[in-house]
């Protein structure tokens, strides 16, 4: 059996190699923590990298010693009775101090990073209030007077501070490319601050178990160049222009306005519900239902017809609409850019 034991620690090492190979051909990872694109996530990444290499060193030394002992001291025929050593004071002191010393090298940069990433943005930062709901995200930009849902737009290179709370249970806002997560708790405000350093689309999702559709509480962040961001803000500030008379979208508006939709949803100038996401600019989003589905006519149809079957626990009841009405409502929602 002794030669079998030689393979003990080779197993995890082989696994690492195998998995890295697997990861290499896996394509892109839109939610990776290992591709930092902000000062916050970069600080975490460099800290984690240093901890990782310390861990590798300790792993190799300790598992190496273990493996060596297993191979070297396996019982041999005619082996002598081992010397009954009971301990060794100098050794004990040594292997108490060595890990303590390594931990100092981890603890000092840790403390520095804790205070550097404590969530205080500099003067002039863009402030966004994030509210978690079962199971979607609401973003209010108090200085700009706009509200967005699920898809957060940010200007590149500008410091951002997110003031986060929850309307119901605890959620956790997590966009790995832009930084670490923080919990959203009703009755408290938690902050994170960061400065996105490149444009692009970033994926995130709720990280704190929050009920049936926890897995379906996803989000996107669009970090945009200043001009694109300003154009988006400008569009959010004005209500979409009304659809021409007699168009399907105009018919859809009428159906919407006389249906149960208005009890929960806001569309500027049409309804004032506050329980559910604001739909004033829903046509301009890339996804619906908390980042679950692409914002297409087909997804909208399925969603309106039976939301809880697509997103367990969703509070929007199935809507009974004639095919014509449904098509019209979908056209109307798509027109709200």
């Amino acid at each position: 059996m002794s030669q079998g034991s030689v393979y003990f620690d080779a197993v995890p090492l082989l696994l690492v190699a195998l998995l890295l190979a697997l990861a290499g051909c896996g394509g892109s990872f839109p939610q990776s923590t290992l591709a930092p694109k902000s000062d916050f996530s970069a600080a975490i990444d460099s800290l984690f990298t240093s901890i990782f290499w310390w861990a590798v060193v300790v792993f190799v030394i300790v598992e190496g010693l273990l493996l060596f002992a297993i191979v070297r001291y396996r019982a041999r025929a005619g082996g002598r009775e081992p010397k009954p050593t009971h301990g060794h004071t100098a050794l004990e002191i040594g292997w108490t101090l060595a890990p303590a010393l390594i931990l100092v090298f981890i603890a000092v940069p840790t403390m520095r990073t804790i205070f550097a990433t404590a969530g205080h943005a500099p003067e002039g930062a863009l402030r966004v209030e994030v509210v978690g709901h079962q199971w979607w995200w609401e973003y209010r930009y108090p200085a700009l007077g706009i509200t967005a849902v699920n898809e957060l737009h940010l200007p590149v290179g500008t410091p951002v501070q997110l003031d986060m709370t929850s309307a119901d249970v605890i959620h956790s806002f997590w966009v790995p490319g832009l930084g670490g997560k923080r919990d959203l708790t009703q009755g408290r405000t938690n902050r994170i601050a960061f400065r996105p350093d490149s444009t692009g689309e970033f994926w995130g999702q709720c990280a704190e178990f929050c009920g049936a559709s926890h897995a379906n509480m996803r989000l996107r962040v669009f970090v945009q160049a200043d001009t694109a961001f300003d154009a988006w803000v400008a569009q959010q500030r004005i209500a979409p222009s009304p659809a021409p008379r007699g168009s399907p979208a105009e018919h859809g508006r009428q159906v919407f306005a006389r249906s149960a939709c208005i009890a929960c949803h806001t569309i500027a100038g049409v309804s004032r519900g506050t329980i559910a996401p604001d739909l004033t600019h829903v046509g301009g989003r890339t996804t619906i239902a908390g980042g679950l589905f692409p914002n297409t006519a087909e997804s909208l149809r399925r969603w309106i017809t039976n939301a809880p079957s697509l997103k367990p626990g969703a509070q929007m009841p199935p809507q009974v609409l004639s095919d014509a009405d449904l098509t019209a409502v979908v056209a109307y929602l798509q027109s709200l850019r």
Partner: protein
Amino acid sequence: MKSWLTTTDHKRIGLLYFWTAFGFFLLGGLEALVIRAQLAKPEGIGVSAEFYNQMFTMHGTTMVFLALMPLSAAFFNFIIPLQIGARDVAFPRLNAFSYWVFLLGGLFINASFLAGPLFGADRLSVAPDGGWFGYANLTSKQFSPGPNIDFWLLGLQILGIASLAAGFNFIVTILNMRAPGMKMLRLPAFSWMTLVTQFLVITAFPVITVALVLLMFDRFFGTHFFIPAGGGDPILWQHLFWLFGHPEVYILILPAMGIVSEVLPTFSRKPLFGYTVVVYSGVLIGFMGWGVWSHHMFAAGLGPIADSVFSATTMLIAVPTGVKIFNWIATLWGGQLRFPTAMLFALGFVSMFIIGGLSGVSHGSPPADLQQTDTYYVVAHIHYVLFGGTMLGLFAGMYYWWPKMTGRQLSETLGKWHFWLTFVGMNLAFFPMHFSGLLGMPRRIYTYGAELGVTGFNVVSTIGAFLIGAATLVFFVNLLRTRRHGAPAGNDPWGGATLEWAIPSPPPVYNFTVIPQVASRLPLWRTERQAPMAPLPLTPPAPIHVPGGSWWPMFTAFGLPVMAIGALSHQVWLVLVGVAVVITGIYRWAYEPFEV
């Protein structure tokens, strides 16, 4: 049959604990396989969100409270009195009571799977679904209106009583019932770690009991301890839960560390290196385990000062843990190593626990943890610690002590299959989780999109999980087969140093024909100063009193689930019936004649 129901013999109670906990271990494993099957594919294989949430909640709850803790308890019961040279535990009937309460609590919480129709719901729909950590305010009546959370909070309260009763019992046993000459620093390492564990049990369980009672008040009587809209604070729950929860981690790992500290010396033919340091490290870990709870809450926003302090205490706890590992390696150093299955599992423990410990350091750093917490990276960590650590340690204990417990040895051939399947399976299952977590996969999600890019890792994890399942079946076959085909164990199949190897396997009801006089830490080995202990007489020279059986522990225990069912169904009269049963049971128990 009657003799098993009324038994107060620590050895029989140990076996009852073992088989009951092993049954729950299989159930918890089955729940894990449902989880892994669902995650093998993006968008899943059709497990509903609601059922998935029950699965991971019950997997965690079952493994922690119904499998790992009571499997350790099986060894406390069977082995501790033998190791310290006693005829039984200090309170044999209380010991029986602990077992029955554990069994009934476990059945109560699992009955939720079938109880749906009683609440106008489907089967498999009202099991606990708030996570094993049960975070407020998701567990409030508003967001969890069904009986799911009630099953959980009442079941855990019942189980807490079993743990507390056993905790006091074993503290008194270890402190007071040691054989003459067995000073505290001659106590075997496993007994020492058990003692530390029991102190953690009796101090940590009251904390979660308080939390559960407050939650019960919120749900049953409309109080607002954890409800922010009513002025309460859901973060308070997190503090209370983790103030219990972190010591609980050490409650789970210290017994396994104790087992490994017995197995490594036996199969190295060397005493445990640095015995006193290993013991004091265990005690220190027990103390330090109380000062680290907020490292579970780095994302909760406690502020940079709190995060720094808890980060520092968390990193410090790595020092005594590292010291233990170095002492285990030094125990091997210069030995004559033999590799029966027990030794393979013990070495597996050491090698895997190192990995769990190192990933633990990485989320002991709060900024790094902000990326890692609530992801599969942490799932990898806890499974390296609790499966690679605790479970491999417990398997080592099973192969090591099974001959003592039953008189027959487990098959080494099946044992090796069991070990290697488990070892390869667990690394396939849990190692890829480091990657899926770092690449952005949160935990507790019943579905994920293919675009996340983590499908490959999840497939490997699922294959590994099913390998572990196959390995466990091999072990189960080994256990059953041994009943008839196992080689007789004799007193001491391994050449052990501690007192349990001085007596027959299985031990007679009185354990020792005469209570041994202990003169060294390794009574059965020749040391520099001591010759091995003289063999004990084969028959007792004088009659030995052993406690008789009693119905009252089981009777009393039955009152608790009756109270819980009353609370669950809001029938006050039923609660009162349960109270009456408990009081009657305790009264009759107290006045039961000492000799039966």
